[in-house]
């Protein structure tokens, strides 16, 4: 049987998490290649819809990664992001997906090791959860959003 290789989308804020991911590179730390980073200026820019759409389109897990609490370059974007992640987790729970596929993390720009650890542990967690159940359906019924 083919081993399950989850696809994980990581929305990373430019000032901390994305820099931490680069730092992990400079330090040559290894983490699973399943994690694909999308750079955003602030974790507060991550729209609940983007998280939902990532899962709807088949991602197995979504990370939202911002600055440490109190360190947000834009004051409180990371706090807003955390609230938003909570609300998405609730919706996912309500539709029977389980909220654990989405998680918010915080780290400072210098924390390359933390980024690698987060990426590794989250990937392990998603492996345990298994593939996104949305993908098991046949026709995805994807329709262009019309507005």
């Amino acid at each position, binding site marked *: 049987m083919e081993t399950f290789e989850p696809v994980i989308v990581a929305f990373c804020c430019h000032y901390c998490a994305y820099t931490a991911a680069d730092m992990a590179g400079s330090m040559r730390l290894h983490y699973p290649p399943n994690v694909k980073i999308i750079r955003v200026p602030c974790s507060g820019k991550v*729209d*609940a*819809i983007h998280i*939902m*759409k990532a*899962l*709807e389109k088949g991602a197995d897990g979504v990370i939202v990664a911002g600055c440490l609490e109190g360190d947000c370059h834009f004051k409180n974007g990371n706090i807003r992001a955390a609230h938003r992640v909570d609300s998405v987790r609730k*919706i*996912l729970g*309500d*539709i*029977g*997906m389980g909220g654990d596929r989405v998680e918010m993390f915080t780290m400072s720009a210098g924390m390359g090791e933390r980024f690698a650890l987060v990426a590794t542990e989250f990937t392990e967690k998603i492996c345990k959860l298994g593939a996104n*159940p*949305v*993908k*098991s*359906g*046949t*026709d*995805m*019924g*994807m*329709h262009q*959003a*019309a*507005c």
Partner: protein
Amino acid sequence: MITAERKPMEEIIGSVSPYRRILLVGCNECVTVCAAGGRKEVGLLASALKMHFAKEGNPVEIEEVTLERQCDPEYVEELLPRMDQADAVLSMACGCGAQEVARRYKEKPVFPAVNTRFMGASERQGVWAERCAGCGNCVLGITAGVCPIARCSKQLLNGPCGGSTSGKCEVDPDIDCAWQLIWDRLKALGMQERYEDNIPAKDWRTGRGGGPRRIVREDLAS
């Protein structure tokens, strides 16, 4: 503003589950402002429903539209070209909007995705509170700008009752006693003597007591 809240996901799922092609209609007025049924909420709900049904092996097509105002026939008319492809309509507008869609498209089942709550004001980001009960005969002029019908739990016209403690209502300590608020405003206005005036029993026929209401402006209706 009319306020609303999204219905529990389970109820929405239950109402649309027989249908495979759903037209999800938002409204860019009140429900956008109270973050219940604007473009963003439409997008989130569509995504959630698609995921739910895909997961069940029973995928749905959802078309998202947000009308400028769902309670006006001209805007609702804009849905016409999309109706053929829809088995059912899910409305994220208030009850007025959902009914207008149902009136126009008689052959389509229409389901509400939100519970319309009350006419209210925004206290701060994300918090709305009831302010008006639509009684049809406004008393704010004699109650110092605070409505006892909407804001007193007992709708007392000559309050407060004995349950008012430290300015809070006995029904729920988070509710301000409307009559305390009225008193405070009267004092600030230097009109304490008004408090002594007895407000006579209210004629509820201007409200729901007279059955469903309508307004006709002769000059405009022609």
